[in-house]
């Protein structure tokens, strides 16, 4: 099929093949000899790998939790406010709120690095006296908040899309029946946005494993202090390319990627069978 060929070929060669080949490589050593599960044994058995791996995975889930608890509810709240009728200037707000999402992570990372830098004194004026990005206790929550600040536009615009598609007469009808704003939200709006909530959650989950850029930009590949901001993305990069004294290994890199693949797969399966099957999608 002429129509299908370009998309299928490019997708297969540059995405499907590399993903499968990566899985294959995780069973071979760096010289191409079959190694069975040796790489996996190293990853989970050798403390230099295993400790870092479990740390990074834990941080990843914290990072995810911050986005679920803050980014998505704030996104929903903003979307609801942006669809309130009879308020002027909503388009301006919508444009402004989405603005950080269009900036690159490099810029966002640097902007916040400067603002939070103890040298500048902005934080002092705002009454913050800890170097938020410098202490292991605060670095991960701070980075999560920066990421939430940047990406809140995505859930906002997705929820917004669903909300404006809800027919007005549906809401008016229930108003006439005497329902208050909260009741309308609980009984009509919320069931209608529930499927989108699932989609956003799974996208947030997958996106977490891509969250390399921000950490790299603000804290470097070593993800300091003392690996306190290390996540799977930075761990994968270090394992593959090496960093500060350690040599990288493509085979180990492929192994880390394969484990990440499995973790993502588990999340996607939970979404598909635990959520999608139970939530009703209403055709409007």
């Amino acid at each position, binding site marked *: *099929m002429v*129509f*299908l060929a370009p*998309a*299928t070929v*490019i*997708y297969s*060669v*540059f*995405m*499907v*093949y*590399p*993903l499968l*080949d*990566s899985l294959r490589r995780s069973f071979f050593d760096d010289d191409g000899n079959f190694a069975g599960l040796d790489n996996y044994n190293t990853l989970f058995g050798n403390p230099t790998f295993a400790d870092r791996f479990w740390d990074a995975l834990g941080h990843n889930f914290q990072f995810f939790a911050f986005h679920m608890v803050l980014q998505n509810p*704030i996104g929903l*709240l903003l979307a609801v*406010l942006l669809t309130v009728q*009879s308020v002027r200037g909503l388009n301006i*707000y*919508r*444009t*402004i*709120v*989405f*603005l*950080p999402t*269009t*900036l*690159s*992570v*490099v*810029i966002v990372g*640097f*902007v916040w690095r*400067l*603002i939070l830098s103890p040298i*500048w*004194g*902005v934080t002092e004026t705002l009454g913050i006296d800890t170097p938020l990005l410098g202490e292991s206790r605060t670095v991960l929550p701070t980075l999560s908040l920066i990421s939430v*600040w940047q990406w809140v536009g995505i859930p906002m*615009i*997705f929820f*917004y*899309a*669903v909300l404006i*598609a809800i027919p007005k007469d549906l809401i008016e009808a229930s108003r006439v029946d005497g329902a208050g*704003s909260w009741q309308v939200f609980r009984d009509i709006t919320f069931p209608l946005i529930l499927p989108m909530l699932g989609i956003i959650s799974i996208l947030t989950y*997958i996106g977490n494993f*891509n969250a390399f*850029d921000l950490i*790299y930009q603000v804290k470097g590949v070593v993800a300091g202090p003392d690996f306190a901001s290390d996540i799977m993305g930075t761990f*994968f990069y270090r394992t593959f390319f090496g960093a500060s004294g350690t040599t990288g290994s*493509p085979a180990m*890199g*492929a192994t880390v*990627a394969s484990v990440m693949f499995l973790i*993502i797969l588990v999340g*996607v399966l939970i979404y598909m069978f635990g959520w999608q099957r139970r939530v009703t999608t209403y055709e409007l």
Partner: protein
Amino acid sequence: MNTATSAPAPPNRISPTKRRIHFGRWGVHAVLLSYSMLALGPTLLIIMNSLKSRRAIFDDAFSLPTADTFDLVGYDTVLNGSSFDVYFRNSFIVTVASVLLVVFFSAMAAFALAEYDFKGNTLLALYLAIGIMIPIRLGTVSILKLMVSLSLINTLWALILVYTAMGLPLGVFLMTQFMRQVPRELKSAARVDGANEYRVFGLVLPLVRPGMAAVAVFTMLPVWNDLWFPLILAPAENTRTVTLGASAFLGQFERNWNALLAALTLAMVPIILLYVIFSRQFLRGLTEGAIK
């Protein structure tokens, strides 16, 4: 509302409702305004201070530049010591090429998937959709090997091909939804008139413009802003994208705050301007794609 028979509502029933709406409207403004300030504040702080002298940056970060404190020394340093023009050109080429390829190839594939009933249709659609759920970065080890063997390392082609592959799954999925909405009669009529399949495809394309816009918008952002693949596939000075270039460049000026602030401003302002000018189309594209 029936008019003639119903007595006028007692005034004490109307006024609280009115007050609530009134309060609600201000409440909405208050929340959105505070959030807008939170969204804009950091950006404005950087731009504002990039126009000030070093002393003024540290003395009072929150004040606007005045005649006394106005200073462009940062811009001088940045513009004389960087190749941001090259980086911008690279990012532009990579983004435009990837977006065009994704939009066009997804439209073609989606046309076939929506139009023809052939064996394996659903299976192929599923195969192409799997990529939506799996980050392409997990294949980086093999992508790097593949690009080395194709001698595409440090070329913009490496990035364009990877980004096209990355954008296609969502692109095909979205376009298929839009293609399904094109009325069947239109295509049959064209075929009756003797149009071949390419001609029919050409006729359908203008009808799915909103879909193409949505796909373009969804592809554009992650490509323009990506740091991972430029860092790994094309780190050479002459193939750096803006994102990677800014990352490396900003790193050099660790202690020169004027230059840092100026460089950040230069990297942000074009994007912000483009976004503000096209925000209506851009957000419409996102909104239309989101509910498919």
